């Protein structure tokens, strides 16, 4: 349980010893519940709304479990296509929130880095300010950083929290290829990997809508990344290989890409 100490995302420091890759979500659910009770000293859950950040969808898994145990209403992410064409609508339940507790387990699935793709996230901020309600947001740390700048999501939850098991990734793998060669004009690999990190994975069909490159260039890059084992496809979504996560993040930061 000690590993499940919830701390501010801003002040999060990785533990000195790496944790087991298998995250004990049951303990995490209990720890999160205890933390919420502790946070709201006057009444349970008085401190809403709250945000929990993690990596690789861990925060979403945790909050799915917590919502089921506590009978909170889960607000699922809309299809990526509806975000892309601007037809994604705000969850109707938020119009008349009452006493319900809402959970958005994966906010990273509720936006796209596209000029139509951030409308839903903005609507969420505007609506909750107009009609305050109690809810918990789960979000990938990269998406959280982006949405703080794009729609000031932290106006709802100023201090997102996290816990070490939510931020785990495998021990750093040696021999990660250079993804940001200075000699070449194109930094397309870096842009593709960065986009995958910001969205915690993305389908190959949507990626060309988010990047200023030809679709065939992007597909070739994905193929190269798979060859180099830097990214992989699972359930229709391309993701950064966790074993290369630390090195990729470091390389991106070295060439001025923003990182979580």
């Amino acid at each position, binding site marked *: 349980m000690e590993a499940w100490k919830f701390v501010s995302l801003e002040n999060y420091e990785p533990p000195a010893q790496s944790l087991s890759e298998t995250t004990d979500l049951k303990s995490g659910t209990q720890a999160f519940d205890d933390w919420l009770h502790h946070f709201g000293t006057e009444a349970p859950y008085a401190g809403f709304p709250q945000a929990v950040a993690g990596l690789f969808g861990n925060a979403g898994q945790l909050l799915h479990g917590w919502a089921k145990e506590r009978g909170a209403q889960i607000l699922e992410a809309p299809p990526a296509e509806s975000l892309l064409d601007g037809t994604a609508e705000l969850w109707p339940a938020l119009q008349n929130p009452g006493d319900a507790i809402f959970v958005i387990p994966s906010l990273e699935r509720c936006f796209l*880095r596209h*000029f139509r793709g951030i409308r839903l996230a903005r609507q969420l901020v505007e609506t909750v300010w107009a009609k305050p309600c109690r809810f918990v947001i789960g979000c990938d740390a990269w998406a959280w950083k982006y949405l703080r700048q*794009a729609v000031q999501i932290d106006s709802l939850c100023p201090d997102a929290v996290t816990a070490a098991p939510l931020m785990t990734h495998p021990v750093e793998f040696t021999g990660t290829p250079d993804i940001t060669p*200075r000699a070449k004009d194109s930094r397309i690999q870096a842009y593709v990997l960065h*986009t995958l990190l910001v969205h915690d994975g993305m389908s190959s069909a949507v990626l060309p809508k988010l990047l200023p490159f030809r679709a065939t260039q992007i597909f070739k890059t994905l193929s190269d990344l798979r060859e180099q084992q830097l990214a992989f496809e699972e359930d229709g979504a391309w993701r950064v290989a966790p074993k290369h996560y630390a090195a990729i993040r470091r390389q991106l930061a070295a060439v*001025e890409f*923003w990182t979580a």
Partner: protein
Amino acid sequence: MSESWMDMLREWEGYEPIHILSIIGGAWIAYEITRHLVPFITGLFKPNERFYALPWIPFLRLIIILAALSMIVPIIITPTRENMLALVGASALAIGFAIKDYISCLIAGIIFMFERPYRVGDWIQIGETYGEVIHLGMRTVLIRTIDANDITIPHSTLWHDQLSNATSGAHDLLCFAIFYVHPDHDNALARQALFDVAMTSVYLHLDRPIVVVMKHLPFGLYYKLKAYPMEAREQFKFIADLSERGQFALQEIGLKMVAAPAAVAEHG
């Protein structure tokens, strides 16, 4: 006159020519090292570190040249006060008539080295030429345009021409895209759409501000979308991305683009 010049010269014991040649050789090697090795090493630095490291290159070169001259001159002439004054006077006369343009460039180079109107890594415009400063010589500045053409411009050009520096030694480079539209529309909606376009560009420097400026003109209305790219070398890709998606986003919310008169469009 010729006798007094001869008096200035030192008597050589035989080894002096080799000594002078070795000084010139050493200076040349040091000069070439600063020319090739230092940019190569700084190329490995982060962009912001590169901006601080590269401006020292011309200063190093000046030190090399002055050091070489200060070693060679005393070998050739007897370094008395009279001799030095005569040398300086004669040099000034020769320079005045023969290589005044060259010296003008050189003096401009030395002055600009301290005033630093541009540094290696800056994006500057002199006359019609716009590009990245990739080399600062004693006499000239080498600019690489976006078409990958290298253009050499004498420093002395700035005695009579204007310089526009987009970066001024800083890492940031403000870019903008301009949209001329019909004035009949919801301004707030248009500004929001343009903000979203910049915010969702993959080239955006996320921690720098995005500004949308609006201005009424006799033939319509213009929006200027200002933002910073992560990497200055990608400024034109960034501007193209903002322009293309910005126009699309504005048209999608019902704005009609209008053509600006040539004189207005040219000056933004």
